[in-house]
């Protein structure tokens, strides 16, 4: 028990990295997801297939593979090592964010896509009848409805991303899982550390859950 109390500051410090990884990846992931969801609405086959296979590849492979390809794999290419990209890609933190946002972006694009597909056609016809321009229909009608409908599924994706950030510990970053593993392997007290670190994760999950609930309530008022 004393071992755990000594290590609590370490676990809290590591939680900050977990929060940073989650928030950065989710924010970038939303833009990636929205971008690819819009591409999926395209009638151009090439654009559609590009978005389709992006989502297919990132959802069909484990996140661990993606993070290893970006962190260990890309470093092997000379043209990347020589370019400006290397300044970013040599840092494990940036690689983790890149892998996580590309991954969550793929899942988010599917969530938004089904949000767009579920929009009542009558609403769009009404917009047309009122003479609202295509762009305005998209920004003021389609997008808010799609976002509102995507909220519950997106909440799950946020929790999956929070859990996914634990893989950062495989590329030398000390996030909450990484710190927990380090403490377990030096002191050999897996159960206490698991309960403590697990509770922190569950607390974050609880926060996300309530955030989504709040957003759902707020958006259904309109």
């Amino acid at each position, binding site marked *: 028990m004393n071992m755990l109390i000594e290590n609590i500051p370490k676990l809290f410090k590591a939680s900050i990295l977990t929060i940073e990884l989650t928030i950065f990846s989710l924010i970038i992931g939303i833009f990636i997801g929205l971008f690819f969801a819009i591409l999926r609405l395209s009638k151009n086959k090439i654009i559609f297939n590009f978005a389709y296979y992006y989502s*297919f*590849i990132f959802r*069909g*492979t*484990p*996140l*661990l*593979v*993606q993070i*290893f*390809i970006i962190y*260990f*794999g*890309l*470093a*092997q*290419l000379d043209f990347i090592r020589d370019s400006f990209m290397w300044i970013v890609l040599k840092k494990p933190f940036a690689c983790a964010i890149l892998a996580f946002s590309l991954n969550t972006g793929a899942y988010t694009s599917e969530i938004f896509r089904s949000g767009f597909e579920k929009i009542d056609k009558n609403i769009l016809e009404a917009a047309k009848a009122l003479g609202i321009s295509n762009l305005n229909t998209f920004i003021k009608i389609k997008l808010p409805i799609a976002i509102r409908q995507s909220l519950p599924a997106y909440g799950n994706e946020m*929790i999956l991303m*929070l*859990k*996914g*950030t*634990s*893989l950062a*510990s*495989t590329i030398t970053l000390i996030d*909450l*899982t990484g710190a*927990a*593993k380090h403490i*377990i*392997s030096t002191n*050999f007290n*897996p*159960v206490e550390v*698991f309960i403590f*670190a*697990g509770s922190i*994760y*569950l607390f974050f*999950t609880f926060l996300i859950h309530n955030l989504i609930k709040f957003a759902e309530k707020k958006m259904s008022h309109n």
Partner: protein
Amino acid sequence: MELLSFGNNGWGDELLRATLMTVAVAIVALFIGFLFASIIVSFKLSKNKILITLGNAYTTIFRGVPELLIIYLFFFGGSGAIMYVAKIFGHNGYIEINAFLTGAISIGIISGAYSTEVLRGAIQSIKLNQFEGAKALGLKKTVYFLKVIMPQVLRLAIPNIGNVWQITLKDTSLISVTGLVEIMRQSYMAAGYTRNPLFFYLFAGVLYLILTTFSVHFFNKLEKKYNFIH
């Protein structure tokens, strides 16, 4: 291509074996998950408050805590528990427990949390009058559960079981941290030996894509086969 040849020069046969190992762990884990799910779902649907709380705790914890952390718990905790028992019998020193078993159990328990929700959803979507109908026909409880309820539950659950299988299959990649030689571990070893991580991790990605694509087709077929009512 030489890197993938079979025999001593290439990694083809090793990677093939690793792929089979991934599939084996995933299948065992899925069934361990079913076992847990069928017990926990009966807790969740019972009227006993303690059992309901236990059931909810199980699904909340194992769906809310990272898979990697759970694997570390079982990996370090499992061997720790066994060493503790061995010490009582006078054996001192480090004992490593079987990586396959640790992996399959830890992934299985996570998979079970998702399966519980799938089963619960399927059971609750069966209309209550069927339970009454079975009772009116005087069917025994076990008979109506096995012959009336279960077939419908399984049919309804097929698409979601497919999703749980995909999650489980991808989660097995995390067992590589315990040293079990599945796709990721083998690729890691090959990448280190040949100093060609890009090729081997990309190839690992392709192997997973083949497995997940094949699974999607399999579950779609299964769904069509048993979807005779609509």
